[in-house]
């Protein structure tokens, strides 16, 4: 069902982006023994959620989310996790050339056949957008034969209106338990969603099953798309 990849590279800005966006896909590749490398660009230290009641604070959120990240990745079989060292909510202010070069260096080093990232213009959070912009430019700058396939995550309210339905749909029902474990691992950020999921599973809420069991991506062709500007 899922094509075997040589190597999958995931580049996303925040601990939990991988879980919300691609946990089932990653878990599936790992179950097929496909190597997956995840570059998590920040530690999400500017998150607003501290747990309720708050067990985190602005200063310890970094360490808490770092641990949550590694626990979540372990749950989905993801062992090659790298930290990008950017500060949460500042990626868009980095110099454009620097950002593209950093993304390019990851791609050249890992040499993936598939790259999962956010979709520029349709990924809502400024860090998502900035990383998305840099990544599609980095891929476009690579020689054609070195370019990985790009599967991008779009979730802006107007995404479907603007860019249509996602062309890649994955049913990940077989790895839902791992995905739920990953969600639970990100406790400081996900307690609200975890409650919704728990309740949904008890009451057989189709919306919860749809959300858990399906992941969607847009294939992005850097030759055909108008690349985003800064």
């Amino acid at each position: 069902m899922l094509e075997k990849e040589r190597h999958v590279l995931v580049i996303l800005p925040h601990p939990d982006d991988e879980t919300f966006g691609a946990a089932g896909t990653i878990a599936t590749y790992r179950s097929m023994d496909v190597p997956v490398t995840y570059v998590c660009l920040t530690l999400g230290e500017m998150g607003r959620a501290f747990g309720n009641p708050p067990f985190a604070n602005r200063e310890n959120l970094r360490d808490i989310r770092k641990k949550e990240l590694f626990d979540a990745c372990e749950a989905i079989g993801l062992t090659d996790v790298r930290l990008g060292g950017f500060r949460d909510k500042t990626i868009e202010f980095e110099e454009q050339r620097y950002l593209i070069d950093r993304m390019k260096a990851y791609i050249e080093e890992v040499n993936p056949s598939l790259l999962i990232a956010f979709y520029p213009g349709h990924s809502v959070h400024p860090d998502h957008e900035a990383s998305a912009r840099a990544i599609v430019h980095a891929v476009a700058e690579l020689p054609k034969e070195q370019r990985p396939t790009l599967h991008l995550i779009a979730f802006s309210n107007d995404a479907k209106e603007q860019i249509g339905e996602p062309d890649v749909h994955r049913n990940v029902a077989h790895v839902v338990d791992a995905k739920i474990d990953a969600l639970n691992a990100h406790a400081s950020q996900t307690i609200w969603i975890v409650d919704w999921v728990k309740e949904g599973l008890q009451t057989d809420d189709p919306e919860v099953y749809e959300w858990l069991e399906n992941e969607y991506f847009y294939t992005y062709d850097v030759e055909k798309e108008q690349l985003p500007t800064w």
Partner: protein
Amino acid sequence: MELMNREQVQQLLQSFANEPVYIHLETTSGAYAAHLQEGFFNSGAFIRNVQLTFEHAHVTPDSPHRVGLKLPHGWVYAQGITHYTVTERDELLLAGLDGEGKLAVALQVSRTPFAQ
């Protein structure tokens, strides 16, 4: 974090007066505010590890609290403070957490720089 204790925070803040301290001041509606509520005007500000000296601190009695620091040539203040904690590094962290427990405002004071 713990719920605000006005007397204690007043004392803690005043203990940082009249010496150079590092400030973290932040207001935020979250990066998703306009995504979740169409038309929401998303604004916020962030400043971290700026050094200043204040001569006087005041925590207002009504909750959520307002907290003001008087500087030789200016002011710093935050509105909506509900929680506080002191870290192992003796940083005083004040935060305003909304009804869902999410941070809306933070004012923090430390004698040493906050982690980058």
